[in-house]
């Protein structure tokens, strides 16, 4: 049942830029680039002792930007996981939002600074609140998809997850619901080879996460997660399927986490520097940049402008967050229960 070669790739051969208009292609590039610069700054802030924690999207930018591009933003539901910085930025989350989260400052949009950084939520963009326990988002997305189907609207629900977390029973249960009820649901697995230190071959005895789709009776698609257009096309096909009422899809984007798991991790004990260097050469941003340049869509001047703009946004966000006050401590005590609606 698993389609282990990405169908999107063959189409790509005919349409090297996935049929996307130049402004969309540049927007994709911009999202990836800005995310990377923001991410790099977070690592710097952590090294400077200014923030307590950072968990990175570095290396995953193509998988996430490509996925976002396949959705109707603010219409479809997105249930992300902590590594989805590029994804949520693409959907409307701002560098300021991110920096406020890192510093736990007043005005932090996802949780009012109650949650650790990278625990997203953006109601206005239909981005659902993220917790830390892995895989719980899967049944949330399936439940949202069930609701979409029951209400007859044309939304789809996307859940993102790492390959390690697919070992959780909840991942299986959620995908099973989606298959049994033929829900407009997509699970995007960002397979970056490791779950903290544990390599994927200690998580599963199959070569691809997508092979597991056979257990549910849904298509499983493997795609090069460092090729933003390939991800876009695979995701687009899955979204179209879902929106057409044809049911769920499991999409596996093969990628790599080129930095430690989080700022608390030290990856030297469990993988070689050579392996990391190899994957750094497959950098999804540099790859896409080369493609855009080859197509004449990104001039050196434009590239410099992008860089300067990203830098400026990041700087501004850091300054803003550093200057922001901490939230009023009184706010921590409230908001445990939603108030009852006023009786008519």
């Amino acid at each position, binding site marked *: 049942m698993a389609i282990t070669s990405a169908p999107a790739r063959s189409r790509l051969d005919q349409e090297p830029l996935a049929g996307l208009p130049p402004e969309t292609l540049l927007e994709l590039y911009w999202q990836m680039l800005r995310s990377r610069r923001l991410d790099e700054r977070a690592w710097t802030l952590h090294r400077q002792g200014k923030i307590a924690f950072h968990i990175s999207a570095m290396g995953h930018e193509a998988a996430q930007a490509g996925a976002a591009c396949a959705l109707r933003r603010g219409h479809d*539901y997105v*249930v992300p996981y902590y590594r989805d910085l590029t994804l949520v930025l693409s959907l409307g989350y701002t560098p300021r939002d991110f920096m406020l989260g890192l510093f736990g400052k007043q005005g932090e949009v*996802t*949780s*009012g600074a*109650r*949650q650790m950084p990278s*625990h997203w*939520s953006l*109601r206005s963009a239909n981005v*659902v*609140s993220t*917790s830390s*326990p892995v895989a*719980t988002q*899967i*049944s*949330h*997305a*399936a*439940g*949202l*998809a*069930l*609701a*979409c189907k*029951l*209400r007859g609207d044309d939304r789809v*629900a996307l859940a993102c997850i790492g390959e390690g977390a697919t070992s959780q*029973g*909840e991942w299986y*249960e*959620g995908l*099973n*619901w989606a298959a*049994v009820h033929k829900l407009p649901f997509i699970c995007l697995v960002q397979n970056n080879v490791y779950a903290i230190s544990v390599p994927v071959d200690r998580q599963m005895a199959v070569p691809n996460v997508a092979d597991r789709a056979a257990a549910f009776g849904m298509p499983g698609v493997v795609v090069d997660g460092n090729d933003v257009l390939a991800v876009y096309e695979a995701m687009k096909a899955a979204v179209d399927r879902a929106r057409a009422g044809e049911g769920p899809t499991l999409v596996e984007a093969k990628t790599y986490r080129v930095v430690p798991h989080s700022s608390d991790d030290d990856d030297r004990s469990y993988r070689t520097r050579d392996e990391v260097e190899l994957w750094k050469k497959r950098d999804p941003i540099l790859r896409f940049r080369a493609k855009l340049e080859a197509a004449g869509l990104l001039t050196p001047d434009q590239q410099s402008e992008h860089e300067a703009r990203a830098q400026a946004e990041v700087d501004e966000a850091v300054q803003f967050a550093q200057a922001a006050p901490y939230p009023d401590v009184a706010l921590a005590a409230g*908001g*445990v*229960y*939603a*108030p*009852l*609606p006023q009786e008519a």
Partner: protein
Amino acid sequence: MPEMTLIEAVRQAMDEELARDDRVFVTGEDVGRRGGVFRATLGLFEKYGPGRIIDSPLAELSIVGIGVGAALYGLRPICEIQFADFIHPAFNQIVNEAAKMYYRSNGEWLVPLVIRAPYGGGISGGLYHSQSVEAFFAHVPGLKVVIPSNPRDAKGLLKSAVRDPNPVVFFEPKKGYRLIKGEVPEGEYTVPIGPANVSRPGRDLSVFAYGMMHYYCLKAAGTLAGEGIDVEVVDLRTLYPVDKAAILESVRKTGKALVVYEDNLTMGYGAEVAAILADEAFTSLDAPVKRLAAPDVPAVPFSHPFQEWFMPNPDKIAAAMRELAAY
């Protein structure tokens, strides 16, 4: 007012809420054609169809997880867990997700979800069809925990639960499903989640209980009335958040307190009631705060004499009341 059983009241509440609000749906194992193994959803599949009464796969974690997701959308799921004993696979979704969603999203995302489950012993269910699990959930900020003791409350509280914008864990005393009958008002009404109910006012001692044990406490209090002991019975109804005011008010009047529950004694719900009293009613207490509960063995052992030994019942409760009254 029509008389009905507790389970009929549960069914009627769901029926009326399904009719009133098309965002309400029911899911769980065997809730469809089968009408639930206890028949709580009997006839609802025929009336509302497979889009509102949805047989789930056999998987409690995702029954609740799906419910959370649908609630995030704005629907009003009622998730049935077939026996409270089988709620444990869903613990993570309830405790880490449903309960914390509103707080963690700073009020952006709501989980208007009801989780219904029959609980309790005395029905030859052995270790895994008899459990009382309320104590686990009455410790979790963000949840509301409700246990009705009679048909009127069962209907009114369940309707409130369905309309509540927060996750409500609703445990039903399965031994009382058909045993406990009572009058239920005609027409639309709700019973608010939160306030306890003084179901029998009295002067000599306060007895706190809920669900099946409340039913037994009323019986025992009736027996003691014949002996000239005037017992106040408080039906806690909402276990979480705790109605501290009602607990304190009763004991400030009577000076004596007994908590009755069929869960294991240690760290059962009575611990919290006693702790509240030991702090805030200290100067009113005329006697030790007593707990009558099940022994600290795993749930209800099957063999008939074991079950009798395990379960509190009206006789044991009456004896505890007498002893406390005599203190």
